[in-house]
């Protein structure tokens, strides 16, 4: 079993972080993992993305060309990565910022109003956490418990925000 995932959005939207959470979860579950960023020439703004692989065998190419799952946080990412979802795969779309629809019938399309939900949960900057929650529910790769433990570890030094974070995660996880 190998899951190949791309997460993409504006620089600053926390897309690289979503990827890291998935990878940490993979490690917790004794899987082989890799994480690979890709930046444009812009230092700020521009599009950032990362490729994540979680696998039972040694990871060959860490660069995901055809993905089992894609998360897109902004509009340019949707057009770029929609064609890269494997047949039968899943795309999660941040519908707060992306008003177009994904016109593919051979994949699962999930719309997550991540920014709106994050604001709802009291942390405008945590849209990525909402998305992470939705990802764990809709795509899997790592279990709910595993994801929670990743978040607990990641925010161990910031207990103040942990509660809101978990709230965002749950909101995404319990999307519908």
């Amino acid at each position, binding site marked *: 079993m190998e899951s190949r995932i791309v997460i993409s959005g*504006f620089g600053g939207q926390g897309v690289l972080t979503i990827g890291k959470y998935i990878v940490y979860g993979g490690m917790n579950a004794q899987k082989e993992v890799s994480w690979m960023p890709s930046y444009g020439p812009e230092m700020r*703004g521009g599009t950032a993305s990362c490729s994540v692989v979680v696998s039972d065998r040694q990871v060959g190419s860490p660069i995901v060309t055809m993905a089992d799952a894609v998360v897109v946080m*902004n*509009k*340019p990412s949707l057009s770029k990565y929609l064609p890269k979802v494997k047949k039968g795969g899943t795309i999660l779309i941040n519908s707060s*910022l992306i008003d177009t629809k994904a016109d593919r019938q051979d994949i699962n399309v999930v719309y997550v109003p991540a920014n709106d939900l994050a604001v709802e949960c009291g942390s405008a900057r945590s849209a990525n956490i909402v998305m992470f929650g939705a990802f764990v529910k809709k795509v899997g790769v790592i279990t709910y418990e595993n994801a929670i433990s990743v978040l607990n570890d990641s925010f161990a030094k910031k207990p103040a925000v942990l509660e809101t974070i978990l709230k965002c995660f749950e909101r995404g996880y319990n999307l519908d």
Partner: protein
Amino acid sequence: MEKVKVDFEACKGCGLCVMACPKKLMQIGSKSNNKGYFVVECSDQNACISCTSCARMCPDSALEVSK
């Protein structure tokens, strides 16, 4: 007519014009452009004295000023 015209897609919402305007007319708006930036707007075109301070400060040549 608008004295200060904003190029909606060029603006990066950096706020330098906001700081530069002696009349404090420029403000970051609530609409974001395709790049995801919240674009500046002139709160009162009539109050604008066409001093060009905002436009001169704009790193992205997003402002055009008329009088």
